[in-house]
């Protein structure tokens, strides 16, 4: 038997200049400076720039951030269970990334426009997307599930990093709308808006991210690149993706890059609020690297025990975003058992609602597919629909034949 082995994409990673890997030799101890306000011990620290933003958060806000994070975590558990019960084709769990998503989502304004990946369930919650609607795509009965115009929360994008281009294009559109309004002496002027493009450490290696950052920088587009570095691109660790902190890459494009503790909801909120203001004021894009961790699997079709050790997961659980905020709220006397019991009850109620709704989701009528090809009636589509109706009607006079076909066709 020969010893010839095929080469893999991991060849040559064991070289000396592996700075980021060295820094993360103990995962989660970044060498790069990282903005952190609320530590894992539940103590609130200070930052020369971002403490001012954190101070704006009232106790009511903080309780709200906690309730959001708890709700989305409970939702995540329920959706995972629904997948295991055969009700969803796939689920993409977010557990561990609640602070990064809730903190950034809550920092956005209604007029801002959000481009998510496929894991931003927490951001969806902050944008008032009906979470039960969110399941439609994962059940395979819809290409979207909600109307992005209602919430300024774009449809999930499954093609890695493609949404960063869409986001920069949208941001450049906002710029042009503003110029147009200014030329018309403020007629039809909208409140200043910015765009957030979410992506992950894995997607950061895609060419789309490079192109979008080049354009965003050149045109000073009002866009915030929000990278959740959750340390694992399926089975590929971050230190294989990059040899420098991802936030450092912004320098190369000529705009600010900030690494923030992605498990610190207060810091994430503060940094994102700052970045959105920066963008809305026409100062150009910002890259935020939220340093966090995907505690669960990449998707329900993934098994992380095959490529990482539970000790690493445990180390990150010790930095849990909910636990540290609970410590802080209790220590400061801002929330009591009644509050946490109510949060839990709300979570269970949300889960029950999602479960009911998921069971009730109807398979769509295939005619919907014809109706949505073009905005206006189109002769070719009409011809194809007519052919389909004729074909369906050809089945032994069954009244329901079209319905059957519709079910099979989705």
């Amino acid at each position: 038997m020969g010893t010839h082995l095929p080469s893999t994409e991991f060849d040559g990673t064991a070289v000396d200049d592996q700075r980021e890997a060295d820094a993360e030799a103990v995962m989660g101890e970044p060498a790069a400076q990282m903005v952190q306000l609320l530590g894992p011990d539940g103590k609130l620290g200070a930052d020369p720039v971002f403490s001012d933003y954190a101070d704006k958060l009232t106790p009511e806000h903080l309780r709200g951030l906690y309730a959001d994070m708890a709700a989305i975590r409970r939702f995540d558990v329920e959706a995972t269970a629904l997948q295991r019960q055969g009700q969803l084709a796939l689920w993409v769990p977010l557990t561990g990334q609640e602070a990064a998503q809730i903190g950034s989502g809550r920092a956005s304004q209604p007029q801002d426009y959000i481009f998510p990946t496929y894991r931003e369930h927490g951001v969806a919650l902050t944008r008032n997307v009906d979470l039960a609607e969110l399941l439609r795509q994962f059940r395979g009965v819809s290409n979207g599930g909600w109307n992005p115009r209602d919430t300024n929360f774009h449809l999930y994008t499954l093609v890695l990093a493609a949404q960063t281009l869409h986001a920069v294009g949208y941001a450049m559109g906002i710029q042009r709308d503003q110029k147009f309004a200014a030329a018309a002496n403020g007629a039809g002027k909208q409140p200043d808006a910015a765009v957030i493009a979410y992506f992950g450490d894995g997607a950061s290696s895609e060419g789309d991210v490079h192109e979008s950052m080049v354009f965003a920088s050149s045109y000073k587009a009002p866009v915030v690149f929000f990278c959740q570095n959750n340390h694992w691109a399926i089975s590929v660790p971050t230190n294989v993706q990059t040899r420098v902190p991802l936030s450092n890459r912004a320098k190369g494009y000529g705009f600010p890059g900030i690494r923030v503790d992605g498990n610190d909801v207060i810091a994430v909120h503060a940094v994102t609020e700052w970045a959105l203001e920066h963008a809305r004021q026409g100062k150009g894009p910002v890259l935020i690297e939220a340093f966090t961790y995907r505690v669960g699997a990449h998707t329900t079709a993934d098994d992380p025990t095959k490529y990482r050790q539970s000790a690493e997961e445990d180390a990150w659980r010790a930095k849990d975003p909910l636990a540290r905020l609970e410590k802080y709220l209790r220590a400061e006397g801002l929330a009591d058992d009644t509050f946490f019991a109510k949060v839990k009850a709300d979570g269970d109620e949300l889960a029950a609602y999602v479960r009911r709704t998921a069971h009730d989701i109807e398979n769509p009528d295939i005619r919907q597919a014809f109706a949505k090809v073009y905005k206006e009636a189109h002769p070719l589509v009409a011809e194809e629909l007519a052919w389909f109706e004729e074909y369906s009607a050809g089945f032994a006079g069954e009244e329901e034949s079209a319905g059957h076909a519709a079910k099979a066709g989705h």
Partner: protein
Amino acid sequence: MTLNKFNLPDVGEGLTEAEIVSWKVKPGDAVAINDVICEIETAKSIVELPSPFAGTVNELLVPEGVTVDVGTAIISVSDEVSGDPTPADVRAPQAPVAADVPVAPDVPAQPLYGKLSRDAADEALADGAAAATSNAPLVGSGPKADAVKRRPRKTSPATAVTANAPEVEPVQPRTPAAVSANPAAVVDNRPTIGGTITGLVNRVLAKPPVRKIARDLGIDLADVVATGSRGEVTREDLVSYQAQRDAELDKADGFWGKVGKPQDQRVERIPVKGVRKATAKAMVESAFAAPHVSIFVDVDASRTMEFVKRLKASRDFEGIKVSPLLILAKAVIWAAARNPSVNAAWVDNEGSDTAEIHVKHYMNLGIAAATPRGLMVPNIKNAQDLSLKELALALNNLAVTARAGKTQPAEMQGGTLTITNIGALGIDTGTPIINPGEVAIVAFGTIKQKPWVLDGEVIPRWITTLGGSFDHRVVDGDLSARFMADVAAILEEPALLLD
């Protein structure tokens, strides 16, 4: 009472089957929604399945250790709950919160987290029971494979149960990992939930490409010393393990495997293909089609050894490898000319009961060679026309080409007579099997010093044994004997070649 059946879902993307590793419930147990009922292993991972129903377990429909197709009903749950009439949509109450807190029901409806449209909620509540019975899982993504059944997975003997066994032992001895996997964990709200998505069994860490290589090489990752930065098995670990394993194989120490390993796991299965398959086919054909007769003769090859020694020293043969095989080859060619029937083929006439013997008035001398690709028998075309030196060169080229594994098919076709040099491996003699299409083969045994009686005295001489197998349809005993005697005569006195 309604019986709800839970069909095995596709928990990955496009999986078609899974094995029930262990049941976490038994008939009669009360289950709530999302209680873990069993652990299954798919081609991708081990996962826990949460119950979609609340009620009482009626029957486990698939025993542990059995692999079933996606869509197969695995458990039935009756909706009767003894004592606890929890609605299907609410999970069994837990009490991590202090009991004296007036909890949920009386608190105003508005949740603390972001707003949600609640319009449909109450309506949907009424459908709760109906929803719970709509149990057909959406087994969506992957195309349901045809009736193709994959080989069932190996199961440990302890859990080998017939597929139709009506009931399973409710309390199976569980693996330590299964015991430590607290079933409550999945319905626990503590921030550890993410981990329960995946199997809780601790296994060897390795990236998927490394796993694939290990699988291809037949290496059990658990046997490999891991040096990765996170304790994972790396590609380099595999390479060094493989090198070590090869070395061990050489030593043959590891050949018998670990002590106590069952014998049925100690059988190495090697697919028969390529050269091995061709060799096997040719040998069976030859052995069963041609009635073999084998004869042997001991020869004093001392003069051959001297002759070889002189040739090596001669300027004419400088740089050319000379061995006793060269003399034997020349001897075989010489002897064949004197006994032409050994250089022939038996040819059955198509469609009739008649046959012909084709005597070849040329010698395509085959040399059996062990090559990296297996046994090859390339031949030297028109060997009868070659001088001793040319024959030496031809033998060299043939050996070099064969050892490099570069022998071309044409070089192996059209052979008329074959020599197999088993002496090179230190063997005295053997009964070779005739190369198909020929009628004779000569086995050249090892040449070593032995006591030999010469003129009434025992003296050490260089002795070898020649073996020959002949197709008795063509070559009778006396002819084969004369041919072998001629070959032996040359080895005893190479000067006869000058004849």
